């Protein structure tokens, strides 16, 4: 199958998934308790005013009309206005996307940089001290809840040792890039260091579980590959051990791991909520939690849609990459 057909097929599938998510999100609003009008109005408001507000929000229309109103705005980027602040949902959500993406990518980078070498060391020193160390680390990493880890890192590294800021995001990567492209290299450098300084703890917090997971996957995958006949054949033809291990075994081990990393990146985009909350990180998770608390339905819908689109896009990218690195799959999948 050609690449164009593969991509078209995956994009159509993705659009279908997003439509499903949108419909469920709409349904949730309909069945969830709490009338949006109550959020906007004081309890003792004049019934006439109340009716007027409900009409303005379009909530007196039949459901299918409301559904059409809602869904027809999405392709043109109209997700409605916030009930609490009156701002455009699209603009508010778009503003928080970079923070979430930065955090998710940083957590993934931390995880991959630590986990893959650790998994390799573990697999190539099976049943020896480094293997036990790595196994212990990954067990601890998988079983540590990240709200606890985040708070502990703040207490020890920020409050006690004062190495890192306790919370927030002083500068975003887009701002750093703006400096860079306008030629203000010094400002860009300083901005990047600040960015790194602020993102380190949230990235570690978010990435620890993921690091542990990838370590285990790398270890078991590599042990699996090392037992295959082609490894013996590679040694028989005289390849040095470094080539056997990295060019053949690790490469093949990483093929399935790419899928996991990709899926996990999607999860991180939506699942950074707790970490963002602990570190007061101004991302999608923050927006989502705040708008749920204030029954700001358009905002909830908007953030959920953006998260699901992100997930779908990441998946398509991962599948494309997977077909590229694994010749057996091709673009037939």
């Amino acid at each position, binding site marked *: 199958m050609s690449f164009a057909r593969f991509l078209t097929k995956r994009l159509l599938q993705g659009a279908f998934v997003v439509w499903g998510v949108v419909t469920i999100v709409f349904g949730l609003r309909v069945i969830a308790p709490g009338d949006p009008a109550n959020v906007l109005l004081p309890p003792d408001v004049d019934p006439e005013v109340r009716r007027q507000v409900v009409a303005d929000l379009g909530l007196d229309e039949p459901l299918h009309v409301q559904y059409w109103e809602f869904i027809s705005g999405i392709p043109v980027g109209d997700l409605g206005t916030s009930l609490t602040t009156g701002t455009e949902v699209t603009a508010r959500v778009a503003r928080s996307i970079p923070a979430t993406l930065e955090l998710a990518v940083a957590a993934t980078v931390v995880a991959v940089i630590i986990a893959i070498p650790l998994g390799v060391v573990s697999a190539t020193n099976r049943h020896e001290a480094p293997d036990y160390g790595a196994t212990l680390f990954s067990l601890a990493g998988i079983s540590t809840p990240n709200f606890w880890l985040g708070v502990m890192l703040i207490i020890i590294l920020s409050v006690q040792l004062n190495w890192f800021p306790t919370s927030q995001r002083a500068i975003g990567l887009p701002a750093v890039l703006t400096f860079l492209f306008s030629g203000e290299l010094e400002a860009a450098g300083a901005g990047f260091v600040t960015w790194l300084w602020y993102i380190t703890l949230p990235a570690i917090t978010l990435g620890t579980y993921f690091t542990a997971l990838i370590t285990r996957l790398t270890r078991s995958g590599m042990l699996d590959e090392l037992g295959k*006949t082609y490894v013996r054949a590679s*040694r*028989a033809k005289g390849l040095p051990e470094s080539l056997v291990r990295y060019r053949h075994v690790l490469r093949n081990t990483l093929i399935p791991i790419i899928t996991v990393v990709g899926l996990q990146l999607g999860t991180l985009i939506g699942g950074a909520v707790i970490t963002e909350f602990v570190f007061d990180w101004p991302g999608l998770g923050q927006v989502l939690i705040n708008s749920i608390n204030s029954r700001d339905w358009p905002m909830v819908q908007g953030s959920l849609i953006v998260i699901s689109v992100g997930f779908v896009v990441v998946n398509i990218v991962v599948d494309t990459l997977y077909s590229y690195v694994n010749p057996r799959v091709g673009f037939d999948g």
Partner: protein
Amino acid sequence: MSRESPGERDVTPNAGRDSTRERDASPRAHRDTGHERDRLRVENLTTRFFTEEGQVNAVESVSFDVREDEILGIVGESGSGKSVTALSAIDLIESPGRVTDGEVWLREPDLAEEFRERTPDAVDGDFVDLRRLPKGVRRSLRGPKFSMIFQDPMSSFNPSLTVGEQIAEAVEVQRRASANPRSTRSRTQGYGLGKLIVDTLVPGREYTSDASRERAIELLEQVGIPDPVERADEYPHQFSGGMLQRAMVAQALAGEPDVLFADEPTTALDVTIQAQILDLLRDIQRDRGMSVVLITHDLGVIARMCDRVGVMYAGEVVERGSLADVFEQPTHPYTQGLLGSIPDVEDPAPRLQPIEGNVPNLVDSEMPDRCYFADRCPKAMEACLERPAERPVDGDPDHTARCVLADGEYDPATALPDDYFEEDPEATDAPAEGGAADD
């Protein structure tokens, strides 16, 4: 089937063989000078696997020699230790297995010179004992001295690299080794992790060079793969089994090895393809004057291909000698049994004579201190309750058997009764365990 019939059925393949032999008036003609033509001498090689179920004696004091320009067959049932013997000889045994004893002497005058002063134990004339050489030196011999092909070509290639690339890689290793001999013996061969990462990530940088890739295509052509240029860029799953086994042979030839171990090279293939691969192996062996160690369970393949044969049973070589010696005058009752268990098209005897019983499982604690075959042997005698040594058959040092019958006669008077091993195996095994623990 009579005792002579295995010899008779052997006549046909041998006749065909002799006629081809006459064409190349090779030095094979004078077999007696064989010892001078030794390329590899394996002595008392012993390999154990230390598993959770206990120690498994996969290879038990195996000796054989591989001469220049010959095909040596190793035949035996599955589980008799054939493959492990080959892997032990070229130092490819992996944990939990370990070669625990024995010597692997390779004729390699340069190495012998190099190590004569440093480690005199490891040198004997022009021969070096691989087991006493440093690990890096042993590794550097795989490729230019030894190579190996395996049973299932599909699993013996890395599924995610093209076939051409994998062959080119084997060429490249040797090219780099001759360009920079000093780093050849290091663990990374001067090709460290950093370089590896850069070469993988930076487009246009590859481990293999264009010259190696061209050589890979030449090799593919030499093993009879049509359209080698196109096929080199294909992945293993795009090849048929037979074509892939040809590619495997090409890969094994990349380092121009002196000795090629072929471990059941045709077992996974269709019958029609089997013959093609065997012809290919023999042609290549002749053209290059290589030595081939052909491991198979198929006596027909042995008869068709080999100059000399070793028969393995329960981790031991029970009989070895020239093809004619072993097939026409089999001495060990196991060899006789093997030859008697092949169906014969020309003489469809009403029934075959299978060997009764099963191959022992080789777990150390269950191995008796007697001839391992005695419990299945139709000629077991009291003398068989001791471990037999390998001895020449009728005084011929080139035909040996691990059997008292090699230099003795069957004596019905001391024959063990049929149910001897059934009644109480523990009693006869008891002293064996003490003996085995001392090893």
